[in-house]
């Protein structure tokens, strides 16, 4: 038998296991030190730190929704409170087109679409200007100077005037 022959064995060679482990660590370190993966991993580490802060602060569900959705959620809750304080019975609000809001900078951000408005405000119905539901609108949700106002729609003539005024501003998300 050739004394230089290696004897194959089914037992694990732990030196190779160690070498493989080092190779794995080195490969991962090289990859996650490249610019884009490093940036991304840093972002994920930020999520981990956020977790620690969140556990410490223990925010309520409402606060978390507010933090997550920001302005959209805040405006919907504000409208809900306005309706409650004015004791309005199931109003349908006509939403100004977001193109109008952006052009005239009446709000820092556009309004959410009707279904999202309903979800964020726990039940306030709204309608876009070009929707068949616009005919049923009872109030216009007017915006100005980063605030919103409820303008009652007196009659069908008033509604028609409102729709004509906003006609040149296309509706969008």
């Amino acid at each position, binding site marked *: 038998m050739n004394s230089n022959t290696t004897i194959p064995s089914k037992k694990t060679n732990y030196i190779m296991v160690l070498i493989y482990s080092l190779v794995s660590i080195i490969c991962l370190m090289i990859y996650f030190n490249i610019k*884009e993966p490093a940036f991304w991993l840093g972002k994920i580490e930020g999520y981990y730190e956020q977790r620690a802060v969140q556990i410490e602060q223990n925010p309520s569900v409402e606060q978390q929704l507010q933090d997550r959705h920001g302005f959209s959620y805040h405006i919907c809750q504000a409208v809900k409170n306005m309706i409650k304080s004015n004791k309005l019975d199931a109003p349908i609000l006509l939403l100004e087109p977001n193109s109008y809001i952006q052009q005239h900078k009446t709000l820092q951000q556009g309004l959410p679409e009707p279904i999202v408005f309903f979800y964020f405000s726990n039940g306030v119905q709204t309608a876009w200007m070009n929707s068949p539901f616009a005919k049923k609108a009872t109030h216009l949700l007017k915006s100005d100077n980063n605030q919103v106002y409820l303008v009652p729609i007196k009659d069908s003539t008033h509604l028609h005037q409102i729709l004509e005024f906003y006609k040149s501003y296309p509706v969008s998300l």
Partner: protein
Amino acid sequence: MIIVLFLQIFIGIGILRSINYETTLLKFLSLSLIVGIVTISMVPFLLELCKIAINSRNIIILSVAITALTNLLPLIRLVRNKRRYVLLKIEKFQFYELPGIGLTAYLLFISFWRSYNIPTYVRDVLSGPEPIADMAIKEQTLINSIFKLDLLSTNNQYKSPFLADLQIIYKMAGFDFGGIWIGLLAVAFTIFLYCILKEYVHGLLASLAIVLLTAAPEMYAYTFMYLFDYPNMVLWVAGVYFLYQLLLQPNKTHLILVTLSFALATYIRAETLILVVIMLGVYLILSTIKKQKIKKIILNCVLISIGSFIAYYIPTQLYNNYYLPQDYAINTLINDNLADISPFFNRLSLITNDLLLGDTAKMLWLFNIQIFLFLFAIEIVYIIITKKYKSLSWYYWFGAVLVVYLGLPFMGYLMPLMNVEHSTKRSLFKLLPLLYLFIANFEFIKVISNKLTKWETTKFDFTSLHQEAQPVVATAHKTQKTKNNTNKRKK
């Protein structure tokens, strides 16, 4: 309601054991959880189809009934034939897999936490499934006040009830934002995929692959932002894997697994039906080359197609057209100028240049695509040099990758509303795991894998070094021995 969450895995175990599927423990449990989550998502939908109120009592009763039904056959087999309920063969792991597994576990831990603790802000969820689920909990029906609103801005109310159903169940179980199920699904899928990769390649390569795949930013984001695309990808990959098993070993278990996986994928996203049909074309060609019986192949294709068609028809046609108060004409979504095929090539070009290569692609997938292309180039050179053209697995996984790569622009050509920057981008989730499964079947990767295994189990023989260190003594001893032997022979 928390009991329903525990029932998920038992439903999955019951289904898999009823069809005699047996495999290693982790792979089995992860697949059971995947199947269980998607099956339980149908409970509120089934209640709605039967016009039964969607409340916790009815959900619990139906979930318990489904669990009992799916576990009946395995229990009978256990009692009568003493057949084991679950195979307790645990996968073997080595120390060198720890760095890859450890980093993947860290990433998944964070996404799991976010799926539990962060409310979704995905527009497609907020403008459809989420409000529907919220109102369904209050009004005990999926067809609720949401459908009385101005829905001109969205069509997400017509999407599969899969997502709304899971939100109903998990919110009723006490999770404020409901989305923890996507975290569970992501963990289960990662374990399942890792076990499959290890079937093909050495653990070192598999552990590196799973990290790279998990660290694809766009796909990672959807492991905690629940939407349809990630769960659809999970079931698609499972279906493609089991279709390959059916190709290798045609039997009822594999056939049912393929049918179930593709049907559940289609239930989640209806247009998956198109990809299923194309994928069956790959199966048909390769089965024919493998000289399997043509009648059997066609029968399998028909059965799988029927399963997927039923999963498409019930939520998309039956439910949308006969239950929902508003019509959704799907035929208006189809391209009415199919003779002009230029949109297909335009989309293919956009997908390749914008979504797969280029700077945007790096933000979406990091270097996953570049790694694949680099290894693919090496593989092409290798198989040209070694003339290893005949691997069935190579052609199958190549076909699977092509089905998604060409199938997505084809779907966009058929349905122009499927935009590139959102729907198609997320549909590309189906491609990434398949790229790694394809790489795992590269010839040169198999060679490297075998070498790694061989070196890992090779015992070094150090005795030859000892002999060379003392040649004079050995030679003298040998010479004396030879003299003695010669003397003995003379005598």
